[in-house]
């Protein structure tokens, strides 16, 4: 070539897929940590201390949680910025896509529309969740979280966030697999079916896990409502969260 190629379109496409994959891996891991409440308040407290670095440094550093939230917010901003390029950008585009969607009645086209809507809602719901973690990193713990969810009415954010984030993530991973997957022409359809089935199961599992833990936080929060603001005392009685 006698002139330099503009590799930015390729980089942006990779970045959109890569940032999405990282966010999905994060949310799938996050679900196991936040659902530690299902194993008891002490298990959740242990996880909280782990993320504050107490098991390594000997004392908690909530700023580590803030730092993680900041990185995630930036990652979401990057992913949103890149994904926005694909949204219908004018009324005419929106109208044409909407007409096409209603006309073809096609599963994967419909899934993309669901992803656009859920992605748009996540701009607000995920940001609301992360901002609280960012500015109040020490306000996480068996009672602190349960009080925020019940007495602070954050279940109104977390319940839709749970559903929306997992639907968005599940569809996103399916699309990533079909977008980049090195399947042969002969086995592509087979893999497509397998991946879709696997993701139905994964999304169903995380929705069940997330609902069970959210209900548990709400129940603990309701029981603890008269003492909202008081922190959970670890069995040793030395630490409060």
């Amino acid at each position, binding site marked *: 070539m006698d002139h330099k*190629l503009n590799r930015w379109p390729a980089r942006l*496409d990779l970045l959109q897929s890569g940032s999405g994959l990282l966010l999905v891996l994060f949310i799938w891991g996050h679900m196991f940590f936040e659902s530690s409440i299902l194993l008891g308040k002490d298990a959740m407290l242990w996880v909280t201390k782990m993320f504050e670095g107490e098991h390594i440094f000997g004392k908690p550093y909530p700023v580590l949680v803030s730092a993680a939230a900041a990185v995630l917010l930036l990652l979401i901003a990057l992913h949103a910025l890149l994904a926005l390029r694909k949204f219908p950008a004018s009324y005419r585009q929106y109208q*044409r896509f909407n007409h096409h969607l209603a006309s073809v009645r096609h599963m994967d086209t419909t899934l*993309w529309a669901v992803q656009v809507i859920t992605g748009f809602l996540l701009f607000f719901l995920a940001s609301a969740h992360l901002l609280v973690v960012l500015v109040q990193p020490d306000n996480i713990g068996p009672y602190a979280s349960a009080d925020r969810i019940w007495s602070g009415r954050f279940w109104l954010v977390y319940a839709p966030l749970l559903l929306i984030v997992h639907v968005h993530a599940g569809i996103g991973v399916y699309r990533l697999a079909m977008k980049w997957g090195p399947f042969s022409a002969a086995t592509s359809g087979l893999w497509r079916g397998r991946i879709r089935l696997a993701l139905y199961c994964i999304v169903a599992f995380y929705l069940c896990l997330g609902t069970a833990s959210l209900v548990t936080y709400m129940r603990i929060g309701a029981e603890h409502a008269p003492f909202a603001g008081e922190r959970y005392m670890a069995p040793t009685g030395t630490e409060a969260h």
Partner: protein
Amino acid sequence: MSTIPVKALRTLKIRVLRHNPADPDSTPNMQTFELEEADSMTLFVALNVIREEQDPSLAFDFVCRAGICGSCGMIINGRPGLACRTLTRDLPEDITLAPLPGFELIADLSVNTGKWMRGISERLETWVHAQGLDTVDVDALETPMEPELAQQLYELERCIECGCCIAACGTAQMREDFVGAVGLNQITRFRLDPRDERDDADFYELVGDDVGVFGCMTLLGCEDMCPKDLPLATQIAFLRRRMVAV
């Protein structure tokens, strides 16, 4: 059983979106035709019966009647397909037909896919690029090609440029300059061809942007609605991987 079961043939109600842009008095409207279904009737046959017996002005395209020429692509009950490959028995009694969206309308069900395909072909330079083509001895035997490779090329060459993948693609419907599966498939076809001397950087120049391979949002309408069952999703994924590796 005292009676012999006889297959009841239905009366089809075929609604056609009619409009002739060349006629200043024409406005888009739906016209309904009724006709008796025949055994093994295709939509192509049904449309010919309508044109012969009811309305000679009904415009639609066909050449081969066998799913090879790609002329009779249209929207059949909301989805793109070939009229000659669609049996009426696979459809309900009420059938709605419309021209393929995304192409210049000639009249009624006839669209100018040829003009669009020609434009894409020129834009993506879908022909063999090699040095010294003008001095090739056309009487000499061609360099042999491995049968597996020839088969791979043939598989991609089966595209009949009917336009169904463009009508099935949400991206192409939103963004008129998107090259679509038909264009990307052509690029993978020439990339495979050992006679074409272009490398991946050359192909990146043609499709390495948001109206090329990176514009594809993997809605998979092309793959699911291709009348020739071409492995379009596999080809686009392959091309995407190659183009990011340039």
